[in-house]
C-alpha cells in the first residue's frame, strides 16, 4: 500500500513538473504539449492508438518468448558442450560490438515490412542478455553440489537437468528482467525503420505531421506497457525462477 501511494505521488509530481515546464516556458503545443492536452488526445484517439498498440504488444510478447526460449536453450547448449563454447562464444561476444540498431534496415529488407522483422529485432536485442546471464549462472554451480552429484554417480546430462539448471534459474530470471525492458526497444526500432502498423510507426507518423500530442500519447502508452510487462515478468520470475523455485520437481 505504501509502495502504491509513493508510486502515485511520484507520478503526480512528474505530471505537475511537466505542466510547470510547459506553462513557465510558454512552450507552444507543437513543441511540447501539456499533460492535459495529451490526455485529451489519448482519449480521443484511443481507437487508433489501441489498433497500433496491439501490433506492438504482439511483436514484443512473441519476441520476448522466442528470445527467452532461444537464449535459454543456447545457454544450456554452451554450458553443456566445451566445443560449442570455443566455437560460438567468441562469435557471440563479437556480435555485441555490432549495434543491433544498425541491422534494422537489413532485417527489414530480408524479412519484409510485416511483424516478423520486428519480432526478430526484439529477439535479437534480448538474445544476448538472456543467454549470457543464464550461461554465467550455469557455469557457477556451487562446487559442493557438483561433488555430491558425482559421488552419487550422476550422469552429466542429469546433473545439468537436476542441479545446474535449477540452480541457475535466478540468473535466467535476471536475464528475463532485462529482456522485458529491452524487447519493446527492439520492436519500436524495427517499426521506425519500416512498418505500416505499430506504436513506433504511429509516433513517427504523428511526429512528421506535427501532431506532437499524439506522439506523446503513443509514447505514454508504450511506457505504461513496458512498465506492466516488466512488472509481469518480475512477478513470474519471483514465483517460478527465484530462490526456492519448484520447477525441478515437475521435471
Amino acid at each position, binding site marked *: 500500500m505504501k509502495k502504491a501511494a509513493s508510486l502515485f505521488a511520484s507520478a503526480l509530481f512528474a505530471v505537475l513538473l511537466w505542466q510547470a515546464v510547459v506553462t513557465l516556458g510558454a512552450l507552444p503545443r507543437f513543441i511540447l504539449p501539456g499533460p492535459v492536452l495529451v490526455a485529451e488526445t489519448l482519449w480521443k484517439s484511443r481507437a487508433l492508438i489501441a489498433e497500433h498498440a496491439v501490433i506492438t504488444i504482439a511483436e514484443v510478447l512473441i519476441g520476448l518468448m522466442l528470445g527467452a526460449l532461444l537464449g535459454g536453450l543456447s545457454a544450456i547448449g554452451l554450458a553443456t558442450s566445451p566445443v560449442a563454447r570455443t566455437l560460438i562464444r567468441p562469435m557471440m561476444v563479437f556480435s555485441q560490438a555490432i549495434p543491433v540498431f544498425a541491422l534494422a534496415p537489413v532485417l527489414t529488407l530480408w524479412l519484409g515490412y510485416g511483424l516478423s522483422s520486428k519480432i526478430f529485432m526484439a529477439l535479437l536485442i534480448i538474445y544476448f542478455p538472456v543467454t549470457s546471464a543464464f550461461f554465467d549462472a550455469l557455469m557457477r554451480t556451487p562446487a559442493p553440489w557438483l*561433488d555430491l*552429484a*558425482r559421488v552419487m554417480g*550422476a*550422469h552429466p546430462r542429469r546433473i545439468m537437468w537436476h*542441479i545446474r539448471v535449477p540452480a541457475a534459474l535466478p540468473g535466467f530470471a535476471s536475464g528475463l528482467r532485462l529482456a522485458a525492458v529491452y524487447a519493446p526497444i527492439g520492436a519500436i526500432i524495427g517499426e521506425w525503420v519500416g512498418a505500416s502498423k505499430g506504436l513506433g510507426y504511429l509516433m513517427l507518423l504523428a511526429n512528421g505531421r506535427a501532431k506532437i500530442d499524439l506522439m506523446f500519447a503513443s509514447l505514454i502508452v508504450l511506457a505504461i506497457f513496458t512498465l506492466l510487462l516488466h512488472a509481469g515478468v518480475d512477478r513470474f520470475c519471483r514465483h517460478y525462477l527465484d530462490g*526456492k523455485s519448484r520447477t*525441478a520437481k515437475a521435471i
Partner: protein
Amino acid sequence: MPTRHALPLQSYDNARKRHGNTTPATLFDDLPVSAFHRPAQDWGIYMTPAPSLLISGSAWFDGTLLFGPLQLTIGAGKWTCLLGPSGVGKTTLLRLVAGLDAVTRFDGHLNASDDLPLAGRTALMAQSDLLMPWLNVTDNVLLGARLRGKTPDHARAARVLGRVGLSDHTRKTPDALSGGQRQRVALARTLMEDRPIVLLDEPFSALDARTRSQMQDLTVELLSGRTVLMVTHDPAEAARLADTILIMTETGISSFPPPPSPAPRAVDDGETLKTQGQLLALLRQTTQQDESV
C-alpha cells in the same frame, strides 16, 4: 499442540536390545539391513560386500604438505571414527576416498581390499548439508535416484524420513527447516544411497543430545555391515560408535583402543565413559602441542 520434535523412534535401550539380537530391522521390511543379505542376482559392482580400505601416502596442496605420509586401514564392514584438530585434513581424506581430489594432490595408494574401483561404491555425507533449496525434503532425499536415472522409491524415502523423525516435514523446502532438521535430511539422503562404503563428515554435529543419540543408533543399525568412516569432533560419539578409533595429527595417524563392548554402546556405560575421558585428554594434549608451536 503436538511436540514438533517428537521422534517416532524407540528409546535408546530398546534400540540397543534390538541391535543385540538377530531380529531383522523393522523399518526396511523389504530392505535387508546389510548389503550381504541381498539376493545374489541383485549384486552389481555397487552391491559388492563392503571391502576394507587401504590408504597410504601424503596429500599436498599447492606444493605444501597437508598431511602424511600416513598409512591406515579402514576395516571391512567396520565403523571407523576419525578424530583430530580442526584443519588437519580429515575432510580432505574423506574427499580423497570419495574420489573428489580436485585441489589436493595425493601421492600414494588408495585401494579397496577387493581391488575393485571405489567409484560408484561410496556415499558421502559432507560437513554441510548440501540440500537443494528448490527441492522439498522428499525430493532432496530422492535426488540420488533421480541423478542416476533410477525410479525414485517414494515408499522407502517416506520410511527413512520417518525414522529420522521428519514425517511431518516431507513437503517443506530446506529453508523452512531448522539446522538439526536439515542435517537429518542429509543423513536420510545418505542412508538412501545404499552403498558398501559410507563416509560421514560430522553427521550429527547439529543435533541436540537426545536426537543425536537416537540418530547414532539408527545409523549404526542401518549401516551395519558397511565400511563406515566417520569424522567427528566428539569423543563421546567415537566412544559410543567406533570399532576403530583413529586420531589424526600433523605428524600422522595413530589408533586408540575402543571400549570392548559392541557398538552402539550405552551413553552411561562405564567403559565407554572411560574411553571418552581418555580420548578427550589425548585430544587436549595434541591441541596444546599445537598452541605451543
